[in-house]
Structure formats: C-alpha cells, structure tokens
C-alpha cells in the first residue's frame, strides 16, 4: 500500500507472491540452477569463456508476469535481463557486475528528488456573474439528490439490488475449497493436480483451479474495462492528502524492480491505480504462500495445496450434491493413483466462508466420510 508520503509497502503475509518473487531473485542472482529449473525451462550456450542462460517459465501463472529471463557472464554473473510479459522485445534488463564478499547492510535513506509540484486540487473557479444570477433564480426549485438509486422508482431499485445480491450470493455459495495434503510437498502438489484434473473432467463442477494466475489476465481485462470508476481506498486517501505520491510511486515503478510486482504492466496502467484496486480485491491469505504457482499451507508436517472449484448448479440441490460427492470420490482416487504412494494423503473441503446470510439457515452441512485404501482421506 502507499502511505501517501514516500513509500510503497506490501506485506508478504498479505501478498504471498512477494515471497515467490524474492526466492526467484535469489535464485537468479545466485545462479541457483537447481531451483531455477523447478520454475523455468533452461536453455543457452557458451562462446569461449562467456556463457548465456535463458529461462522461460514452466507454468502459465509465472509466464503472465515474466516472459523470459537471460543471465550472462564469464567467471561470474555479469548480466541479468528480465522481460515482463505483454510487450514485444526486452522490457527490463539489469546489467550487473557482482563481487561476492561479506558486507554489512547499511540502510541509508536518500531524499527523493521530487520533480513535480503537487497538483492543485479543490473546486474549479466560481462561475461568472451571469451564471450566479441564473442560479439564484433557479436554485429554490432544484432538488439535489446524490444517491442515484434514490432517483429510481422504489420498487425498481429494490428489484435490481435483489437480483444483483442473488447473483452474487449464488456464485459465492457455489464455491468449494479443497485442501489436498501430504507430508511430502511434491506429493501434495502432484496429488492436487490430479485431483483438480479429475474434478474438471466431471460434470459436477464448472470451474476448477489449482494454480494461481490461471485466469489472471481475464480478471485484469474485466477490471480494466471499468477502470475509470475504480479507485482503491489507499489511492483515494493519497489523492486527497498528497497527490504527488502517485507520481512518486509511478516513477519508482518505472526505475526500480517495484514495477515488476504489478499484475498490470506499466504501459497500460502508468499510475498503478488499476493494480492497487485489483490487489485490494484479493483477501489476505494468512499463512498461505505460493509454491510455484500453487497456493499452499503448511501445518505441522503436512503441506496442503488449495484447490478451488464451483459446483455446476445450485449447491442446495440434492442432485448437484450427489454428482459432486461422486466426482470428489473419483478425484480423490485419481490423486492417490497419480502419486503412486502409500504415504498418507488427505483431502478436506470447506464451503466458502462467505456463505450468503440469507440462506444460512438452509445451508446443508456437507460432510462425508470416505475412507480410502491404502491411505486415509477425510472430507
């Protein structure tokens, strides 16, 4: 978030992608080929003592942020080029000359040289004499109403709101969260992938996601259509208290790696207003963090991978529930088969915590017990 004065701060607890970005930076700068190979396809060559390695993201989620990275050097790393997605040609390259040595971190905070005076806010100048005279005559007859919904006929506005709330509530009620867990993170990852694939092939669920960022671009496109009407609370405050803070943040995004953390590229969203609004919509994820492109939670010795699905139809219909139960049972078996292990694999599911209040009294307790061999599964 912007503090309106001089800094942009984002917490890893709220934005697990930051932790993944940090790990990627470490891997790039330390030339950790093993770790890079987990997330990227590596290619490259050498000429004399000089070498060059190219990296392309393995999964779609990472590819939506980074198109490719190139590391070059001789005895040590001399050049790193990061190309963000969405624009042809290289976008951001960092030519580095590094030397490895122990050194204490000295945090010297330089003053920012603002190159722009604060924009003048407030209302426009007063109208001319003629205008005031007209207003003085008309004003007693004017009725000012700022709530546009109040301008609609009472029953009409209620119906629209009711319909919108119903649509929204129904969509939320259809969401089901699954946690697929195993002691070995790689087993949990593979099991979650198999589980999600099986669910998506069933007719019981419309939308199944096990990787973050699968639909990032479609979400961005949706919000960008309405960008003129969307402003995050932080940006509202910044505009009111210190409007040049937006300019400062935009400059930092252009000239530092901070711009690489934005889901919307700078050429489409130079002030970052769309990015800030989009990030506002993402709830804090607590202990969850990104492992590759999967969202995982660790508890004790078990790693759980989150799978999000939506039922095909109302979750309150018995027929939909029956289909879902069958699909979940088959998906759990698929997860076991994919991992080919006898280690304990568990899955659990929770209905969306944002269950519509209106239907809370009708909400079914959707729990079952489905012991599986050779390992146990509770759901």
């Amino acid at each position, binding site marked *: 978030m912007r503090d309106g004065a001089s800094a942009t701060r984002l917490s890893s607890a709220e934005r697990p992608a930051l*932790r993944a970005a940090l790990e990627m930076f470490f891997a790039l700068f330390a030339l950790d080929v093993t770790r890079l190979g987990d997330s990227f396809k590596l290619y490259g060559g050498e000429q004399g003592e000089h070498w060059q390695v190219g990296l392309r993201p393995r999964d779609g989620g990472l590819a939506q942020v980074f198109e490719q990275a190139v590391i070059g050097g001789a005895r040590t790393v001399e050049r790193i080029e990061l190309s963000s997605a969405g624009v042809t040609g290289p976008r951001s390259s960092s030519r580095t000359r590094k030397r490895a040595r*122990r050194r204490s971190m000295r945090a010297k905070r330089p003053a920012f040289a603002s190159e722009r005076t604060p924009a003048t806010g407030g209302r426009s100048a007063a109208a001319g004499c003629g205008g005031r005279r007209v207003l003085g005559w008309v004003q007693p007859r004017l009725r000012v109403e700022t709530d546009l919904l109040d301008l609609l006929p009472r029953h009409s506005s209620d119906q629209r709101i009711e319909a919108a709330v119903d649509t929204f509530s129904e969509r939320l009620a259809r969401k089901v969260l699954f946690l697929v867990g195993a002691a070995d993170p790689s087993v949990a990852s593979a099991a979650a992938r198999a589980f999600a694939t099986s669910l998506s092939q069933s007719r019981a669920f419309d939308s199944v996601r096990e990787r973050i960022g699968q639909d990032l671009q479609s979400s961005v496109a949706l919000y960008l259509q309405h960008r003129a009407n969307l402003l995050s609370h932080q940006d509202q405050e910044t505009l009111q208290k210190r409007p040049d803070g937006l300019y400062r943040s935009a400059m930092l995004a252009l000239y530092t790696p901070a711009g690489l953390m934005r889901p919307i590229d700078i050429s489409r969203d130079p002030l970052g207003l769309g990015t800030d609004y989009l990030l506002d919509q993402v709830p804090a994820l607590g202990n969850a963090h990104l492992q590759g492109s999967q969202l995982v939670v660790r508890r004790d010795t078990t790693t759980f991978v989150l799978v999000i699905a939506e039922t095909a139809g109302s979750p309150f219909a018995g027929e939909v529930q029956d289909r879902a139960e069958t699909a979940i049972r088959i998906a759990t078996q698929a997860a076991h088969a994919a991992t080919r292990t006898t280690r304990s694999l568990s899955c659990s599911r929770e209905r969306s915590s944002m269950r519509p209040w209106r239907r809370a009294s009708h909400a079914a307790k959707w729990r079952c017990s489905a012991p599986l061999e050779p390992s146990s599964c509770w759901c």
Partner: protein
Amino acid sequence: MLHTTLAAPAAELAAARVLTGKFVQRRYLRGLDRPLISSGDFILAREYGILWRTAAPFPSEFVLSTSGMTSA
C-alpha cells in the same frame, strides 16, 4: 553441458552469503522508442533479502525481504 559450464560460477556464488554489485536497468515500454535507464548498486543478503539502491536518474531504495516489499 550447460550445468557443467555454470558449475564454477554457481559454486562461487553459492558460497557467498552476501552479494554486492552495480546495475544498469533498461526498461522498455510499449510506445517508447528508447528504454528508461536507471543505475545504482545492490546488496543481496541471504538471511535478509535484496536492497536495490538506485542512484540515477533519482535516488531511491527498493527492499524485497521475507517480510515484504518497500520502495521509497
């Protein structure tokens, strides 16, 4: 083959707990013929994170650590 080539520099970098260096960043944007260029130095400390200090065209700091990101 590639792994063999990279083994020596990777081993040297892996042994270092702190890496420092200078950078020149070129940022290419759609609609601009020339890149936006910035330069400065960086410190990468394994236990802490990355401090990216830009000197030109204006001084700024970017910190990416396990607890989050700050740019000022």
